[in-house]
């Protein structure tokens, strides 16, 4: 589904991603872990099409197509979803207006009928149950005045409505209490299927107790320096990142 080859990305002449290689197939869940500032969000944002970052080399294929040539909206319409680490507030626009516009843009692209206000409301109410939120949530302005946990749940709610093929969740588990974490995990598991793929960016192995990954990767200083199974997350939780750093440095020298 997704093939990243030697991806290098810079911001204002500073190189952040220094050659990423990653392959994600349908049905898989990949976790990406790594210390602060290692480039996890940069990778996630580049995959979603953020233009502030310059791709200096490498390629990304999504379902065989050149992803880097597609504008962000086209990526979304083709099934890519990014749950933002810091969801954006949009005062003055209700959650339902925002999501209806998004869903209909995607449906139109797929050649499906656009949903009218009533149809959308029915769908939204059903999906709200997944994130255990009240329907009044639909009338509130997008993320404005939301608590951290509400913002994260809103991202999962959006994902549930838009039903992407490839979901990239950037720290959607950070800062959540255990109840909210379970809700978020449940939302992610609902999307999981043999046709979809999920990339979880996280600092904590806690989420991975509820969403069991097939692969765990360690991103460090712009490179994936180690990959493994779900046990790797437990090891990282226990020992931190220093041992891998040392391991890598030993190998290099």
């Amino acid at each position, binding site marked *: 589904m997704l093939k990243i080859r030697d991806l290098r990305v810079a911001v204002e002449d500073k190189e952040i991603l220094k050659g990423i290689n990653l392959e994600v197939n349908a049905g898989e869940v990949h976790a990406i872990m790594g210390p602060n500032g290692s480039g996890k969000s940069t990778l996630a944002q580049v995959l979603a099409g953020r233009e*502030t970052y310059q791709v200096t080399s490498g390629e990304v294929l999504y379902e065989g197509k050149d992803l880097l040539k597609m504008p962000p*909206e086209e990526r*979304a*319409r083709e099934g890519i979803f990014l749950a933002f680490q810091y969801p954006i507030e949009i005062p*003055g626009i209700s959650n339902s207006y925002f999501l209806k516009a998004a869903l209909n843009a995607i449906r139109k692209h797929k050649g499906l009928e656009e949903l009218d206000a009533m149809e959308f409301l029915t769908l939204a109410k059903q999906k709200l149950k997944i994130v255990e939120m009240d329907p009044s949530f639909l009338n509130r302005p997008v993320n404005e005045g939301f608590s951290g946990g509400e913002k994260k749940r809103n991202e999962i709610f959006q994902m549930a409505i838009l039903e992407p093929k490839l979901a990239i969740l950037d720290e959607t588990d950070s800062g959540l209490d255990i109840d909210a974490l379970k809700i978020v995990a449940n939302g992610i598991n609902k999307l999981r299927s043999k046709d979809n793929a999920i990339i979880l960016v996280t600092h904590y192995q806690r989420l991975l107790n509820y969403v069991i990954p097939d692969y765990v990767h360690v991103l460090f200083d712009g490179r994936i320096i180690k990959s493994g199974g779900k046990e790797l997350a437990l090891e990282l939780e226990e020992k931190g990142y220093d041992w891998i750093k040392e391991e890598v440095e030993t190998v290099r020298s």
Partner: protein
Amino acid sequence: MRVTKNQEWYLSNFQAFEKNLDGDQASPIHKIRKTAISRFVELGFPTIHDEEWKYTDVSPIVERTFKPTFAEAEAARWLLPLTIQAIRRFTLEETGYHRIVFVNGYYSRELSYPHPLAKDVQIGSLATVIEKDPTTLTRYLSVGVGFPSSYEDNGFTALNTAFIRDGAFVYIPDGVIVEVPIHLLFVGIGDSEAASVDKAPPLSQPRNLIITGKNSQVALIESYVSPTHSSYFTNTITEVVIGENSVVDYYKLQYESLEAFHIGTVQVRQGRSSNFSSHSLSFGGKLVRNNITVVFEAEGGECTLNGLYVVADRQHVDNHTMIDHAKPHCTSNELYKGILDGKSRGVFNGKILVRPNAQKTNAHQTNKNLLLSDEALIDTKPQLEIFANDVKCSHGATIGQLEEDPIFYLRSRGVDREMARTILTYAFASDIISRIKLEAVRTDIDRRLLSRFGK
């Protein structure tokens, strides 16, 4: 004093107007008209050397020759091709609104749709009042010195006053709550391009007077519209005299053609403990100036001024607001927002005057602008003149552009760039829209905003 060709033109038109008046020449209103035309000839139109007109150059109006419309018969000439269908898109639901229509400044019985009225309530044409009760009328018209709608120091006002003949007249007696909102629809229509080669486009000058008694309540909408894409000039004045403890919800919707010129003055006098809210929504016109002045003539008044101006291409829109806190214990809240695209230009000038004895005044003003293009321009100027010491006053102005983060957020959800900009532009205006109490007006603005920037 040098009388320009332009002033001579309007003076000769005044003489023709006078001849047309017949018996009306003896009325006290006509004395006012005559003083006003002399004053106009002295003043002429303002120039950018006048402090109040520094950023709005009216020479496009001065350079053109507009023909003042001064009789129903003449207005009827424009009216002939005009059917209700032609103005349908500007009307509001008949069952829910009184509709009073004016074509080029003159009342049209055919196009109007008034509902039955409670006893002594009057909603209709000023011409009738001029005929029947000119003396009372002169009492209410604030043509005297000191009012911005006085002809003393403003050429446009003097010109309007000189040609007072028709407009809307609304009188709400004490204790009456008018349940059905009043829609005053001003239709402007000039000749089509081809026909206008040798003819001067029309100048309409409605003079509107709204008087509310004690403990009364009314909602009024004034809309200025063009059913065709024609050039003309509207020079309008509305005076609102609000009685003690009464509530007035006022809307001014400016939707004229991009070839139309519009100079509008709204002059409000608030009685004790009265409540006035105004929503000024300016979308159309080539060159537009909206003046609104509110004077607290007694204690305890409250006023809210909301404004939204949305312009593109080479449109010019100027909003001048002035709140005169002449008495203590009054509150004013003002929020004006501007959305400017293309090579358009906006001006906001918000004056708040707190006179020496106006203690316990609360006055807050905000002006926010969104520039959608690099070539759009806004001049914003708050002007606070505070002569009392026990007051709470604040003001603030901002000029900004759409931010990239929310645009990307929307795009990452599948919404294209243009639509994302439309949604965020709408979001910018949303607090003004949510303050609009009349649903029909709110829905109309929603549609305009979302279609204007859509596609």
